[in-house]
């Protein structure tokens, strides 16, 4: 069941005109910001399928920028996101692509700030619900609806068990988990969707475990 809550159907409360092209787009932008962990200074946004065809009329572009500025779907500031981005020192570029993607509403967001760079692919599956399908080249499946944490780590034995043990210690139940790596023994990634919100001190504890590089919380 992709849709779990009745509020996925009666909701979200949002700025019009399109749940998949506006609200979903804002959510993809916001998840990207959450994962980046701070305000990016530049963004390159590639749009595919229906996003590429119709983004101007749906405000998909201002919604994604609004998301990158940490605006929620119902934040009226989405309407002035372009101007707000300029004030916040965020430059951006939209690139409509013709390549065929698995889902008709797909965006690839590449953001950075001079020190770091991040790339994320999100799809808007209808009614404002989204899924993140790729992060920095790692394929994954993240619904953006449950609270989730992202752990970048060295590909060493025991890493996954340590993180799971830490969550278990605080009675946090794992709803969905994905583990992937680029090459054996190289950088790896854990995406853990959890039923409860993970408090900051738990994140810090996970971050201090051996071979863990980065821990990020993705807002519920």
């Amino acid at each position, binding site marked *: *069941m*992709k*849709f*779990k*809550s*009745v*509020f*996925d*159907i*009666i*909701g*979200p*409360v*949002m*700025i*019009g*005109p*399109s*749940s*998949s*092209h*506006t*609200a979903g787009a804002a959510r993809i932008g916001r998840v990207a910001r959450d994962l980046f962990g701070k305000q990016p200074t530049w963004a390159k946004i590639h749009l595919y*399928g*229906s996003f590429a*065809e*119709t983004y*101007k*009329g*749906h*405000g998909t572009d201002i919604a994604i920028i609004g998301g990158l500025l940490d605006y929620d779907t*119902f934040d*009226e500031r*989405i*309407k002035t996101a372009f101007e707000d981005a300029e004030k916040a020192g965020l430059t951006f570029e939209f690139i409509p692509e013709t390549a065929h993607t698995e889902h*008709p*509403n797909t965006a690839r967001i590449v953001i950075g700030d001079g020190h770091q760079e991040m790339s994320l692919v999100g799809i808007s*599956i*209808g*009614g*404002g619900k989204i899924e993140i399908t790729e992060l920095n080249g790692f394929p994954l499946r993240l619904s953006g609806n449950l609270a989730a944490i992202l752990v970048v780590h060295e590909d060493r034995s025991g890493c996954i068990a340590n993180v799971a043990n830490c969550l278990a210690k605080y009675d946090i139940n794992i709803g969905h988990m994905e583990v992937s790596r680029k090459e054996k023994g190289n950088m790896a990634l854990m995406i853990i969707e959890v*039923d409860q919100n993970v408090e900051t001190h738990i994140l810090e504890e996970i971050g201090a475990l051996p071979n863990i590089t980065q821990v990020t919380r993705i807002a519920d």
Partner: protein
Amino acid sequence: MEFLFHNVRELVDLANKEQKLISEIMIEQEIIITGRSREEIMEQMDRNLTVMEEAVEKGLKGVHSKSGLTGGDAVLLQAYMQKGNTLSGELMLDAVSKAVATNEVNAAMGTICATPTAGSAGVVPGTLFAVKNKLNPTREQMIRYLFNAGAFGFVVANNASISGAAGGCQAEVGSAAGMAAAAIVEMAGGTPEQSSTAFAITLKNMLGLVCDPVAGLVEVPCVKRNAMGASNSLVAADMALAGVTSRIPCDEVIDAMYKIGQTMPTALKETAQGGLAATPTGKWLEAKIFGGSVVGSGN
């Protein structure tokens, strides 16, 4: 996490077995799945109801979209109704005008509550605030209206689609109209089975509806299709309450809708490449709004 129902048959059977309203089954499932309290869940739906109410009010005062394609029709309809000489009746036109009002607000980038999507956000509140004048529901009954609608939308979203890009307008306005019909039946005192019938009749009548927005905007024909969805749901609710049944079971209608959506050409699924969007006037409007040439259109 175990869902109480996965399809309409299970939903209706459970309501019958436990002698509960469909809205109550939806509330109980929400409590189980999210672990949130009943109070919290009712409060959130109350807030969504308020957003809907405010959107209707705003639309009835008159709003216009940036493109200029839509706006002001809700006002025209209300003025027409006040002359007291309507053909389809006051409640029907009230629902239609309030559905249109909501979608005009949506097109103008105002605040709305998606039900189940933004493009179809007018049908459920439009019918609710029209039927309200006839049935005089309590606030809780109005909130329950949304839970009943949500239960049917939940089934469609998980077993078929509620997105125009994936399933055509039948998946958006079709689902919304079915949801409204089912909720009207519960508010009017009908049985869970009759809610299911009203949903099935409504969706059957909207099967095959393509998503062909002019210039890719959620305006033409989306706003008027919400009017059609609202009227369709009222008629279907009356039919179900009269005892008319659906020969094709509700879940099979939903499945048929899904399969029609899968076989529908991409040009007719929100890409603005076919249907009304590809008409000479549709292309002309697109060029007028976004600039550029209409040469080579209809691709």
